[in-house]
């Protein structure tokens, strides 16, 4: 597979609008464990275009959070990147020194997490934490405080002048997540990484947070990498979607492509079993039979990763890893707007439905 965007010598910071903000190319990542290496991400290629919200969906263990953590380089000690690159602003983030990386975190990119309680320091006031993260700016503490108040107002915290003195436990879950978003957005980052930011929240709060992210994204014009297993949320918020299964990208495309014209049997199965799509009351909901394959050592299946659970699997899936086919044309085209890694999409395949 060749990647046309990957020129042999990359020029310094190509800032033209066409180049994606974040370009993950053939990223592979292992976790070391007593049982052997876990091949958590394998040959991941995906992009986050400027000003777009890209959703990453998949079941638990698909590697969607690992991907986000790899981008911001906050991986666990036992994680090893074994191949590929993560290009942002013309630089491969994986080659940067820890010091250079710190210069990017909290400036060009920031992150919000699933549990807003554990990502805030509970023995420090909100205001103090928001002042602390502006440590780089040569302005007075009073000005930093003013900015913190403004940031809180922007995310819809009532009486921010007062509430800035509060401690995390004095806020509800939804308010805490708003505070985390305020902190992440205060620097107006180019890229916001959101790791299941609404999973721990009630549905009514969830829609408020989705609305807030939508509004801030439009105001700031940043890109968002939104990790979620909730298809409804992704359908509502995201422009583009990347579907991960067992550490591989199986399909990517615009949100309409993915939800209206899924090209991969896994995406189809995932959509089918969302009870939110089944409007008639039923006592038998569809499921995906079987289990996710083991990713330890050499137990990773050969050929297509989904073949063990796929209702359409045939002999070719057993030995040949499917490349990225353009869903429309059936050609091998990793850069097409809608691609699926399934042999059924191959134009030359007579089984093509």
């Amino acid at each position, binding site marked *: 597979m060749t990647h046309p965007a990957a020129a042999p010598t990359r020029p310094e910071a190509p800032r033209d609008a066409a180049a994606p903000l974040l370009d993950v190319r053939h990223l592979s990542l292992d976790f070391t464990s007593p049982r052997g290496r876990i091949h958590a991400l394998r040959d991941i290629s995906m992009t986050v275009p400027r000003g777009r919200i890209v959703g990453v969906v998949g079941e638990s263990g698909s590697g969607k959070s690992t991907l986000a953590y790899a981008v911001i380089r906050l991986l666990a000690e036992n994680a090893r990147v074994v191949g590929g690159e993560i290009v942002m602003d013309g630089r491969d983030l994986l080659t940067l020194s820890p010091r250079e990386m710190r210069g990017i975190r909290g400036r060009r990119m920031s992150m919000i997490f699933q549990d807003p309680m554990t990502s805030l320091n509970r023995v420090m006031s909100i205001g103090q934490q928001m002042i602390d993260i502006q440590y780089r700016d040569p302005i007075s503490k009073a000005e930093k405080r003013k900015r913190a108040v403004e940031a809180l107002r922007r995310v819809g915290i009532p009486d921010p002048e007062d509430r800035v003195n509060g401690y995390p436990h004095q806020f509800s879950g939804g308010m805490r997540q708003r505070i985390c978003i305020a902190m992440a957005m205060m620097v107006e980052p180019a890229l916001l990484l959101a790791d299941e930011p609404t999973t721990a929240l009630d*549905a009514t709060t969830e829609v408020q947070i989705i609305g807030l992210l939508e509004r801030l994204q439009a105001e700031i014009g940043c890109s968002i990498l939104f990790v979620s297993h909730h298809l409804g949320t992704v*359908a509502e918020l995201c422009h583009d979607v990347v579907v991960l299964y067992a550490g591989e990208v199986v399909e990517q495309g615009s949100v309409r492509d993915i939800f209206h014209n899924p090209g991969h049997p896994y995406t189809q199965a995932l959509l089918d079993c969302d009870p939110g799509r089944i409007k008639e009351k039923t006592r038998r909901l569809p499921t995906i039979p079987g289990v996710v394959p083991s990713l330890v050592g050499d137990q990773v299946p050969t050929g297509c990763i989904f073949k063990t659970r796929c209702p359409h699997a045939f002999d070719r899936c057993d030995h040949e890893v499917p490349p990225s086919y353009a869903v429309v044309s059936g050609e091998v085209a990793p850069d097409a707007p809608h691609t699926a890694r399934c042999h059924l999409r191959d134009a030359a395949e007579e089984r093509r439905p």
Partner: protein
Amino acid sequence: MSTLLEVEHLKVRFRSMGALRALMRRVKDPYIDAVCDVSFRIGRGETLGLVGESGSGKSTIARALMGLIPSHGGSMRFDGTELRGLSQRAYKPVRRDMAMMFQDPVGSLSPRLTVRSLITEPFRIHGVRDRDMDAETRRLLEMVGLPAGFAQRFPHQLSGGQARRVGVARALALDPRLVIADEPTAGLDVSIQGEVMNLLAELQDRLGIGMVVITHNLNVVRHISDQMAVMYLGRFVEQGPTEEVFHRPRHPYTEVLLSANPEPDPDAKLHRVEARGDIPSLAHRPTGCEFHTRCPRARDYCREVAPALSSAAPDHTYTCHFPLEADAKERRLEA
């Protein structure tokens, strides 16, 4: 349909401060009402879905039913027996007939017990000695669709869905007549959610058990329950047949909850009704209608006068001064 469980005007209170502090602050009533005036009945083979946001009192009802926390008013009759006021000793045989599946599939299993010990623990607790535990282990594992080899596993070796199945096996070990499932699908992937719901539905059809399903996932409620009740600040604000409540909600809060459910379709034209702000504290309940602080339809009247229980149909009740019209949602869908 014979009534299995009948709850009337149930009230559960928690102490909000110690006696000394209450005395010093001259607080006459140092309690908060976590569950307030809740009534429902469940027949054999029927399922009641309890929905509401965190802190609305859903799990508190379950714990009160199981006698894990004391209740402070009303009545709970299970198969004709009044449960309120029973001693812990007298409660034990009740828990044979009324089983609970707790939230958090992995966390509710003791980490040092094998699956075999976990699913045969109910027999030990209730002194059932005349059965072959190996046979029971095989029977229960088969019933919930786990391979027999899982008997020797520990909870940390199970996935979320498998741990949930063990929870189901534990709850059903002693052939209960009522199962209370607290968030049976929370934290599970959509593909696994379907499996757990199908399992519960199938076992219910086969064994004719009554169920209370507590969840904040409306999609789950829709497919699994016959009746549903919507809770807000410890009260039922709307209650009725599930399809009826979904198609013709009367209480604005129900509408807010229903419309807060993002459709997995990017082109779904959602007419979203949002509730403002956060849930008020139980210690400072709003006056009048308790939903007025967040209600999109609230008027001055709602701030002053608490709405009485009204009926849209004999089995569909709600508490609202200005309910949604019967055809409001259908009109909205057409628009």
